[in-house]
């Protein structure tokens, strides 16, 4: 093993000198995670809204289950998606295994409970009142729900960012259904796994720094968005 400080110096140089593989991997990671988050938001912000606005027996149980699934292990999702999209699986003929799309789908599933649950929580403060106000002014039910979501856009953006943070930092799904194919399905986290395995300390550190930087910028954005802070 080389000296750690030396490795850190090399890592910094990789970042500052624009190491092409490092940058391509970062960009790819961002795209995959953003797609996953967007895809999941598209379905599960409405799902959270539905959960909030509808009433049915067992609703409490469902919300509890959703909340429990916040911490669903990534390898579990990875395994399920692998079994589903593998050639012999039910979705095998889509040929999705070992593609960025498969990772995005897996990550979308991973963050679905977070998006659903946080949307639900976001609406709990005043959601019904806003919806009824929209209804009272002549809106249809759909328009009313959309108006509430738009009124809550700041909290929802926070939700999306939290989900993105989770997607970007997971590794189990990316390895299992992405296969860590160089230049295609290799993400920051899977690169780190590989680099550490190979004993490439400098590269591991550089990758780790970029990942940390991403997580940090998500966090800074979240803080910036916090309405309490804006007032």
């Amino acid at each position, binding site marked *: 093993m080389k000296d750690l400080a030396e490795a850190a110096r090399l890592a910094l140089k990789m970042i500052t000198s624009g190491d092409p593989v490092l940058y391509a991997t970062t960009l790819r990671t961002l795209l995959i995670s953003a797609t996953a988050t967007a895809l999941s938001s598209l379905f599960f912000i409405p799902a959270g809204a539905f959960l909030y606005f509808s009433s049915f027996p067992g609703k409490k149980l469902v919300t509890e289950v959703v909340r429990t699934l916040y911490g669903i292990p990534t390898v579990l999702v990875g395994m399920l998606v692998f079994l589903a999209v593998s050639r012999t699986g039910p979705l095998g003929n889509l040929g999705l295994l070992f593609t960025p799309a498969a990772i995005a789908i897996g990550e979308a599933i991973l963050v679905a409970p977070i998006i659903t649950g946080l949307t639900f929580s976001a609406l709990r403060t005043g959601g019904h009142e806003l919806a009824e106000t929209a209804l009272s002014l002549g*809106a249809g039910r759909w328009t009313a729900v959309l108006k509430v979501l738009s009124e809550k856009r700041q909290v929802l953006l926070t939700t999306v960012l939290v989900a993105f943070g989770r997607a970007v930092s997971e590794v189990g799904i990316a390895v299992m259904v992405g296969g860590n194919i160089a230049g295609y399905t290799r993400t920051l986290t899977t690169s780190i796994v590989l680099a550490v395995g190979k004993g490439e300390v400098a590269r591991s550190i550089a990758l780790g720094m970029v990942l940390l930087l991403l997580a940090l910028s998500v966090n800074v954005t979240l803080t910036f968005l916090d309405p309490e802070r804006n007032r």
Partner: protein
Amino acid sequence: MLRLEDIEQVKNGVRIIRGVNLEMKPGSFFILMGPTGCGKTTLLRIAGLIDRPARGRVLLDGVPASPGKRSGMRVRRDVVTLFQNPVLFGGTVRSNIEWGLKLRGVKTREAGRRTDEILDTLNLSHLSLRNVSTLSGGEIQRTALARALVLKPRILLLDEPTTSADPELRKELVREISGLHRKWGAIFVMATHDFTEALSLGTHGAVMKDGRVEQAGAIDDLFRKPESPFTAAFVGLGNVFKAKFSGGKAMVNTLYIHHPGDREGSGYLAVPKESVTISLNKNSTSERNRFPGRVVSITGNGSLMNLEVDCAGVLFVSSLTEAATKELALEPGREVWVSFKASSVRTF
């Protein structure tokens, strides 16, 4: 015409509205009255198409307001509700007021013009671009009123719009609402606890109890001819009269009645029945309003009795304890004196 047809509502397994049928004609100002929990707000929410009833229909000019259908959507655009505690959308006063107009596809320029107009009417022009998070309670109330009124709906439902307002704002709101109702002749439906508002604004009304309509009709009939003990008890007066006011006195039939205030012209006058005392001779009381009369009827519910006394054709109702009734040996036909303080007289 707005029609509520066989409306039933169930909440947590309890029937909170039980078979309500009501009709409201164009130009009418309909008052919903009743004690807290009688179903006024629930009924208003159904009429306002906020909640779906468990049974029954809401029809506007015979068109059912079924959700999802095109015709239902059109009805929805014609019905606007102002809640008791209105919620504003994020943004400015102006963006709140324009929202409903944009929803209806009103062009930007036209929406701007109408918004300016209503802002001006409600003295809100100076707040036009203020963020709603900086508004006071009264300003929120008026913005919400403007947001509802700007839509010029054919049906405007008001759920106790003045309860959270201070007396000054209250008067102002009543004046605005009344003026706008007269100006564009839509159907206004208002739930209220306040008889002053009911009598000064309403043309028609209904008294509700336990999810049912006890009595509906012209507003003065509700007060003057309660059909059930409950209505009578609820409107609480029994003593509502048409009156001519002049020179600090009111004339009801041939009786001159002293009252506070300086009202002129014709209107209504009411004396709460608790304020009406009965005595056997003239001099035992010091109230300014004293009239001789004859007991017409004594009806009782428990310890409290209602006594009707005819004074020169004017029927006064007095609320007495059973003990007092016995002590005075009151019975129909007995001659008595009816008296009440000038300060207990309310005018409308």
